């Protein structure tokens, strides 16, 4: 999967026709084989752009920051990124007419060790769902599968699960990189910062990490699209996808097979309800 040439041609054409002000893509770090996001402002910089299976980050994240606000933006999206873009469009965070979307029919990206990422192996929607132009050949739609590590954890006993998650919350350093890297966390003020509360403000311990990660994952429940930007950003390499994938599983099984960001106009699972929702856990 290497679309470097095609993307460079497309972007050069877009700048020549004056269709965009800024283009979000990937460039090489310059040190190793890995890539980082880059914002291109003019056609002279187009040669910096690359795209191959090391292009892991979700560029929709840049739509919420000031350097692209109120500008005409072009960007590259893979399947998972396009789901988060769909949600941003639905929730009114970006305007479709300001975007030029280069969709990718993605074959899966690899991590730093060169192994295929876990979420790519289990990907349901590898092709971009919203695009102006699609590169690559389209894949058949996948089937919903429960993650193997979720299954394994769920089959363990309560005490083991508690011990496992206590270790995870212990190693969190509250840098909030997961929140900043999440394309769907666009609030300018966040409740996990707790600026007025002495209870959590600046605290860096297991209790505050538990509070922050649980609140964060519940605010993303029914919206998370499993792009794993949070995991790529986490300096402690915490398996944050466990919380999200568990929520996704509960929501998929109980709320009419809801999957977030698949259709434009379809909001998160908590924005709607059904009379048939399970009621048996309520006295």
């Amino acid at each position, binding site marked *: 999967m290497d679309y470097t040439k095609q993307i460079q041609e497309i972007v050069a054409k877009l700048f020549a026709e004056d269709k965009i002000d800024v283009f979000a893509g990937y460039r090489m770090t310059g040190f190793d084989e890995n890539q980082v996001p880059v914002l291109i402002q003019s056609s002279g910089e187009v040669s910096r752009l690359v795209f191959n299976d090391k292009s892991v980050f979700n560029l929709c994240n840049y739509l919420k920051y000031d350097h692209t606000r109120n500008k005409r933006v072009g960007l590259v999206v893979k399947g998972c990124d396009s789901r988060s873009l769909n949600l941003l469009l639905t929730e009114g965070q970006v305007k479709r007419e300001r975007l030029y979307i280069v969709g990718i029919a993605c074959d899966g990206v690899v991590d730093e060790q060169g192994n295929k990422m876990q979420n790519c192996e289990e990907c349901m929607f590898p092709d971009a769902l919203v695009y102006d132009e699609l590169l690559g050949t389209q894949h058949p739609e996948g089937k919903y599968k429960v993650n193997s590590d979720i299954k394994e*954890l*769920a089959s363990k006993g*309560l*005490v083991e*699960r*508690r*011990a*496992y*998650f*206590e270790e995870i*919350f212990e190693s969190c350093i509250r840098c909030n990189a997961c929140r900043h890297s999440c394309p769907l966390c666009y609030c300018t003020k966040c*409740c996990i910062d707790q600026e007025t509360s002495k*209870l959590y403000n600046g*605290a860096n*311990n*297991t*209790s*505050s990490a*538990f*509070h922050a990660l*649980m*609140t964060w*994952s*519940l605010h993303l*429940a*029914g919206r998370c699209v499993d792009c794993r930007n949070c995991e790529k950003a986490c300096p402690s390499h915490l398996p944050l996808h466990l*919380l999200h994938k*568990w*929520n996704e599983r*509960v*929501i998929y099984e*109980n*709320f009419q097979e809801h999957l977030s960001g698949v259709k434009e106009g379809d909001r998160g*699972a*908590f924005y709607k*309800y*059904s*009379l048939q*929702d*399970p*009621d048996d*856990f*309520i*006295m």
Partner: protein
Amino acid sequence: MEAVANNQLVSIEKPEIVAPPNWEPVIIGILCNWCSYAGSDLTGTSRIQYPPNIRIIRVPCSSRVDPWFLIKSLQTTADGVLVSGCHPGDCHYITGNYFARRRFLVTKKLLSFVGFHEDRVQFSWVSAAEGPKFAKVVAKVTEDIKKLGPLHLYKKENFDK
């Protein structure tokens, strides 16, 4: 195992934590203003006894209950939380409790996934006319949580130094 043999209460999530003698659980009850709060009022005015372990917080609707409230209660003083609202179809704001129901399920499942016993957070529908039912619900929740023992996970006070 010894603690169990001596008939002492241990925390179900952390068996090394033993409850002090005469330990009583603290339960936070988050009740909707229009049904459950009025129902609990009726329980009182009807002189029906229910366990005094519950501390009641009044909210406008069960959909006002952010999952954050439950997390924060469990982190501070509570050993268990009870959230109660109007029966489906009876919501003062027409559909509030339908939205709340979805959030409750996900919160309950997530808390049980990270290692809280499922019965630490419980939910009920109690209408304004169901005074006896409210007493029964509180008795059941208190009994359940007494069996589970004290909650010792991620308590804020353990980290305040």
